[in-house]
């Protein structure tokens, strides 16, 4: 009886990362791709690949019938949804199950409960987990105003229907509220088809700390450490680390315990993350559950010496678990997200053709990406290009290693936030672990130094002989691709 075939319903770096573990575990694999991703690396790294539609996500990576048909055609009986796209979509999970296949993730019921922010909060409250003081779902501005008065300014308006910063407004002062509420409702309607908002107390300064959980087949839930994700811009994470430099052992215990309680109450199965807001006094408040594998999962893997995708597969197929007996974190890990965006132009997403890509290969450095030279960065998808992760014996070593790795990273052809990431990691605030959710907003991108300008001018002037190179693949294309996509794993 051979291994079941697994279809990865995703693209980019996470598809590559998942395929890496599936290959290691001996599963036959299937990749899916849209028109824009015909030449993407993940396509060439699976045993089979199926074209599922035109570039727009709605017609490809979000296209449930196309995905199921791809599974049918290739004999895939297991589907791994990755993150984003359909990973938290109860209808997709159900469709997969109804087709007689295994969905690598929580049950459709759990996804439905936790996907509704109100329901998730109610569950946390029921379990005695503190919540950020907040309102129920509200439909008009007057209600929003009344609740804001009750909770006390400053407040945060959030959309009931979804996240990602859409429909979110911070309101400092009662005067600003009506306009902010109207604008937020319009945005929420446009993004999720649901204009309802809820009001939350704005906790400032705050740390964003999340707990990695894994729901096992027998119903128990284990907590696998925490991550600090406070460096964000417009609610999009940029740098994450584990363990949190701020969290004391006592607080860690409380957070993990609270996370497990909420997850168990939701009948949670497989990997997920419970997010909390932590204030300066160590008070913590439940925010939400991300019922999927998260982008920043590598930092947890590095300090605990485990493979979360492997664990996901083991839980999904009810196989023996590769959980380490020791759950104490070893050393410190940090991740920086490389985005195709221009920090000097309001972080506008960038597109273009990658003419050169090179990542360093160093002790303690891991890079998860799905890039090859010559590929087009499409406007259709998330601008996340790569995750550069570093592990060190302590936080400072991890930080220095990550900074050095960024300084040795080359991406030519598309503007990225690489210089900005270096600025962040070198900043005083970051070095001291003062990573509050407002830190990034206060750091303007640094201008080139005079020496850098002089050096660039010199080279520009004398590079007249212009040697333009076009690398070509050797015969063993697949091996070369794995080599180019190398990610180093730390013990």
């Amino acid at each position, binding site marked *: 009886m051979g291994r079941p075939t697994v279809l990865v319903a995703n693209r980019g770096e996470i598809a590559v990362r998942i395929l890496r573990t599936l290959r290691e575990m001996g599963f036959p694999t299937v990749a899916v791709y849209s028109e824009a991703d015909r030449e993407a690396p993940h396509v060439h790294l699976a045993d089979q690949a199926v074209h599922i539609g035109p570039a727009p996500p709605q017609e490809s990576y979000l296209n449930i019938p196309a995905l199921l048909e791809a599974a049918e055609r290739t004999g895939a009986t297991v589907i791994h949804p990755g993150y984003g796209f359909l990973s938290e979509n109860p209808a997709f999970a159900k469709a997969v199950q109804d087709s007689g296949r295994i969905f690598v993730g929580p049950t459709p019921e759990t996804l439905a409960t936790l996907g509704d922010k109100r329901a998730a909060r109610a569950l946390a409250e029921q379990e005695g987990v503190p919540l950020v003081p907040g309102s129920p779902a509200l439909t008009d501005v007057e209600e929003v105003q009344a609740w804001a008065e009750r909770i006390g300014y400053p407040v945060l308006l959030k959309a009931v229907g979804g996240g990602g910063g859409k429909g979110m407004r911070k309101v400092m002062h009662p005067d600003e509220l009506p306009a902010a509420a109207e604008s937020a409702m319009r945005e929420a309607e446009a993004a999720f088809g649901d204009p309802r908002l809820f009001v939350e107390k704005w906790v400032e300064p705050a740390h964003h700390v999340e707990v990695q959980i894994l729901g096992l087949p027998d119903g128990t839930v284990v907590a696998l450490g925490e991550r600090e994700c406070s460096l964000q811009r417009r609610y999009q994470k940029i740098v994450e680390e584990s363990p949190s430099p701020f969290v004391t052992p006592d607080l860690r215990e409380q957070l993990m315990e609270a996370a497990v309680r909420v997850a168990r109450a939701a009948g949670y199965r497989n990997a997920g993350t419970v997010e909390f807001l932590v204030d300066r006094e160590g008070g913590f408040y439940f925010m939400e559950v991300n019922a999927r594998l998260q982008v920043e999962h590598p930092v947890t893997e590095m300090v605990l010496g485990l493979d979360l995708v492997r664990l996901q597969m083991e839980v999904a197929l009810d196989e023996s678990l590769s959980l380490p007996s020791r759950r104490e974190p070893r050393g410190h890990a940090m991740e920086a997200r490389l985005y195709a965006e221009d920090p000097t*132009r309001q972080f506008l997403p960038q597109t273009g053709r990658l003419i050169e890509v090179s990542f360093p290969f160093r002790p303690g450095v891991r890079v998860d990406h799905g890039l090859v030279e010559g590929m087009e960065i499409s406007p259709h998808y998330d601008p996340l290009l790569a995750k550069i992760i570093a592990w060190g014996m302590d936080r400072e070593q991890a930080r220095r290693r990550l900074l050095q790795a960024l300084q040795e990273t080359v991406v030519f052809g598309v503007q990225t936030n690489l210089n900005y990431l270096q600025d962040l990691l070198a900043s005083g605030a970051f070095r001291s672990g003062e990573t509050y959710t407002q830190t990034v907003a206060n750091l303007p991108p640094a201008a080139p130094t005079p020496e*850098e300008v002089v*050096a660039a001018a*010199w080279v*520009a002037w004398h590079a*007249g*002989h*212009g040697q333009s190179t076009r690398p070509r693949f050797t015969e063993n294309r697949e091996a070369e691709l794995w080599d180019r996509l190398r990610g180093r794993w730390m013990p």
Partner: protein
Amino acid sequence: MEIRMGSHTVEVVLEGGAEEGQVSLNGEIRRVRACSREGNRWVLEVEGQRIPVRVRREGSTLWMQVRGRIYAVEVHAQRTEPMSRRHADPLIRSPMTGKVIRVQVRSGDRVRSGDVVITVEAMKMEYHLEAPFDAQVEAVEVQEGDLVDQDQVLVRLSPLEEAHAPD
């Protein structure tokens, strides 16, 4: 010369040859020494600071990694700047041992700065060697299929701007 790095634009004046010289920026002069150059990788010394630079051309943009930081660089040189003609090498040399796979010009042809004059293949990569300035092709020393050594002269050019020289 005007140089734009990302969203920063500054005026600089360069003096000197390919090995050594100085650059004036905002009224301050900084000495530059080219310590090494291997293909697209340079190591410069600017007022004693060691600055590695990696460069790749894409049309009119020069993508550069300068001491770890990445910039999309564009330059606009004044026509009257004498430096390039006086000091750029009129001999197009092979960057390494390889094979000539295409000769784009013939003796007597006129080329513009940036035009590819000859293509050499080495280690499975193609090197398109460009004219460093507007020129007339004086002589082509090799033909397609020839094996060549590093630094071997492939094409001889002569600058076309004698008539416009200001001094």
